[in-house]
């Protein structure tokens, strides 16, 4: 049974007929063809499907289409629209933070969420903010470097204290 659901997606209004129980990740990827958000585990453990709902980072694999009604949704495709988002995406490329890339949209969404609230976070704060995002290729070090690079007042990547996962 489909219902018309309306919400704001990356700054534009959308209206789409969908079962209210369709997972938000399927609605975004399959129906709206925004394939930047990834599904890793489908159970909230990996962060690859992270999106902003209003001003909060949330997981699209654990949300239903019906929960999006009337909300403001920002996906990785919406990030380049803001100066901070664009700077962040560039920093990930410059810092060499990307290997296979599958986790990166979720990482960038979580990092964007942090930098909006805290323009100049410490490495420790960055690791905390990204602690729900798993990467199986990198050692996280260059990912943290990338967020530092994008942060205001940064003087370039610091030498990492250690290589452990956040």
């Amino acid at each position, binding site marked *: *049974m489909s219902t018309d659901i309306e919400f704001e997606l990356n700054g534009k209004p959308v209206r789409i007929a969908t*079962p*209210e*129980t369709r997972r938000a990740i399927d609605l975004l990827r399959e129906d709206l063809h925004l394939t930047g958000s990834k599904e890793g585990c*489908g*159970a*909230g*453990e990996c*962060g690859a499907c*992270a999106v902003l709902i209003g001003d*909060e*980072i*949330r*997981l699209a694999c*654990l*949300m*239903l289409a*019906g*929960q999006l*009604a009337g909300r403001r949704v920002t996906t990785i495709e919406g990030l380049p629209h803001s100066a901070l988002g664009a700077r962040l995406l560039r920093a990930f490329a410059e810092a060499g933070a990307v290997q296979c890339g599958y986790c990166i949209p979720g990482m960038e969404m*979580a990092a964007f*969420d942090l930098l909006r609230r805290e323009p100049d976070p410490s490495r420790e704060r960055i*690791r*905390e*903010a990204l*602690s*729900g*995002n798993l990467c199986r290729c990198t050692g996280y070090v260059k990912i943290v470097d990338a967020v530092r690079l994008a942060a205001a007042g940064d003087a370039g990547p610091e030498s990492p204290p250690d290589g*452990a*996962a*956040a």
Partner: protein
Amino acid sequence: MTRFHAAHSLTEALALLHEETDTRPMAGGTDILVRMRRSPPAVPLTLIGIEGVPELQGIREEPSWLSIGAATPFAAIAASPLIAAHAPLLQDAARAVGAPAIRNMATLGGNLCTASPAGDSLPPLYVLDAEVELASKAGRRRMAVSDFILGPGETQLEPGEILCRVLVPHAPPIARCQFEKVGRRRSLAIAVASFAGLLRVDGAGRIAGARFAFGSVGPAAVTVPEAEALLRGQLAVQPDPAAVERAVLAVCATVRPIDDLRASASYRRALAGNLLRRFLSPPSSPGLNAATGHASHG
């Protein structure tokens, strides 16, 4: 096929729960959606979305208690100055839940209704003597959190009932409290064991009331009244080591841990005792058992 209805008021949520058969409240969805995906329900369910119900949101100080709306997410509890002032144990537990995105979704009420032995909010709520308020079309009722939780996945919640608020009663000042969660990593880890403890002292610095609760070492949070009684009258800053050891033994004898993929029962038993020993021992004292070490990253 399941259905989903978002409710916009408590009255609407209760009516929807009542009218339709096979309904379930859904708050943040972080437990119920994972569970339904793992084992799809035999009958189609109607999920009643309650995260947008204003009556279930928010943290308020009232004359007898701190009132926490059941659909308040852990992120709000972690950030609340009222929680910091009245229930720092619950704040520390909220900060230990999942990771940032999970904390924006996962609610306190969902944590209680899921009734996992590893639920991070349970040990703090037990030692704070917190109560739950339940509502149905028939009216409201209140009970202690420790009575509400019956066992893994089991509570006193009746069909058609919604957990509305968690009430933390105002109580005499707490001299010292501590929440500890031991897991395989710091984020997104289910507790191998967890601990909430608090001490109240008299004018001479002696323990007038000690409360402890342990998570992940029994079917629900485990309290050990015997250990609490053993410590009464001890100097809070330096309790008699023999009394501490007796309390630790009482804890080890009371907990009922299981073996699972995260840890063995015997490890959990030793851990529970060590968590109490560490809480009672002044920070500088030597001889802490290595088993209580915080799990590090990765």
